[in-house]
């Protein structure tokens, strides 16, 4: 095995052993982390937090023009 593969193997083994021998609180917080990431990125980001300008305009020029209008169209 070449040195790079060997190092990669040791690294993977390090993480694998770490996760396997995790304590009760470690397992519990990982469950919470995964649920949280799912809610944040797959529910909130996709359905509620789309980028307002990117949703309305496809190019930076259009976005600039829109914001410029917002800045100057005041009383």
């Amino acid at each position, binding site marked *: 095995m070449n040195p790079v593969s060997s190092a990669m193997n040791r690294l993977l083994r390090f993480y694998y052993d770490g996760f396997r021998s995790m304590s009760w609180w470690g397992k519990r917080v990982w469950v919470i982390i995964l649920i*949280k*990431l799912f809610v944040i990125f797959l529910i909130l980001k996709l359905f509620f937090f789309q980028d307002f300008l990117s949703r309305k305009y496809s190019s930076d020029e259009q976005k600039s023009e829109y914001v410029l209008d917002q800045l100057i169209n005041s*009383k």
Partner: protein
Amino acid sequence: MFDSVDLTLVDWSRAQFALTAIYHWLFVPLTLGLSFIIAIMETIYVKTGSEEWKRITRFWMTLFGINFAIGIATGIILEFEFGTNWSNYSWFVGDIFGAPLAIEGILAFFLESTFVAVMFFGWNKVSKKFHLASTWLVAVGANLSALWILVANAWMQNPVGMVFNPETARNEMVSFWKVLFNDVAVSKFLHTISSGFLLASMFVIGISAWYLLSKREYFLAKRSILIAGIFGLLSSLLVAYTGDTSAKTLSKAQPVKFAAFEALYEGKQNAGLVVLGVLKGSDKKIGEKEVNDFAFRIEIPGFLSLMTEGDKDSFVPGIKDLVNGNASRGILSVSEKIERGKKARDLLIEFKEAKQNNDSQKAEGISGMFREKKFIDDYFRYFGYAFLGKPEEVIPNVKTSFYTFHLMVMLGFYFILVFILALFFLYRGTLLKNKWFLWVALCSILLPYVAGELGWVLAEMGRQPWIIQDLMPVSAAVSQISSGTVITTFILFAVLFTVLLIAEISIMIKQIKLGPKY
């Protein structure tokens, strides 16, 4: 103001951002401070080879891990909100926010995927010294990660190091170093991280006090109080010092906010610092806003002048001077600033018309003006004033500013006293005899959280009406979306974060009750 601004939308967007930031800040400061306390404890373990110190280190590392894991990604929601609820602002700030937040993201990724893993998985697998280095790197990395966020926030308080490009409607960074070493950024960073150190020290002392009250883990508790007592005392003194430098900086960068801290309406020489005070309404007004009087106050004469200029005879402008102007002190009135802001905005209108008429020469000429120092200093720096209807709109909520500031400062002095007492009783060997103090220490765990949140309320509400000081009010920054969406996500966040908080507290309490099991 904008024709179509929906105040419900602005208020809900602000409330949502406040809710997210407040919850996020429940997790961050413990990470900032506890990482250093753990690193110090592990250093003692590596130096002495004592298994007891290893046990102490691993116990606090467990609590650090729970807090760190639950807090992960709660800050990312703030970035989502920028893009959705605050799109005008996000576009306007341009790369000023992008660069620091990108550095923070990269740093956090490498930190979390490597050194935190070594911290938790690496015991008995890597050398003691490599493990110790990883722990220190986590502590330094976590605090550096906070630096970039605070640099971005400081720019909102004191926008420097950029020019506005009318072509793109964005601010462009011209000096990274000016943004990084912005006076507000330096004092804010030091004040914020030292408050995190203080919070973690109180957390360690409070839990150790609980062990002593429960008559268990004496060695762990006393050694932890020693480390946290020294670290906490030094941190609380640093908090007081950096608070003082922050006040000096604010008096220059955000004088109205500074005057509101002290409810100082009439500027004066030999201005006193209010130690304790109660505000009441009055029949006096600035424009349509009521002026608050003191029903009662204790003040140190001349101290406010001394704090701001280092000379008790120096003049500290009051809210009236800053709103109405004070020619003898060289202070422009808000009305004048509104006129100057409107001139900058009129030039932007001319720029747009020139572009529409394909008059590229005129458009380029105007674009060049936005890069000229004289135009920036005389006009563009007041750009946000063009959005204001009345001069008194620049006055933040004085009662909120005054009470949050004074409560935060009082708590700061209380913490110094608690750390001194903890070290004193430990040194005299009388901690166990002074059960009242152990109860005080236990009950004080929550108070640094309160102080930290008050600090953020003060920083953000004191800056109102601005989202970017003098350049953009919050009402101009908001996206034109329905307030119903914002209300829905507000409720979702409130539920999500409350569940996370309950999860953290319950896991942590269970682990504390179990105690160190290594």
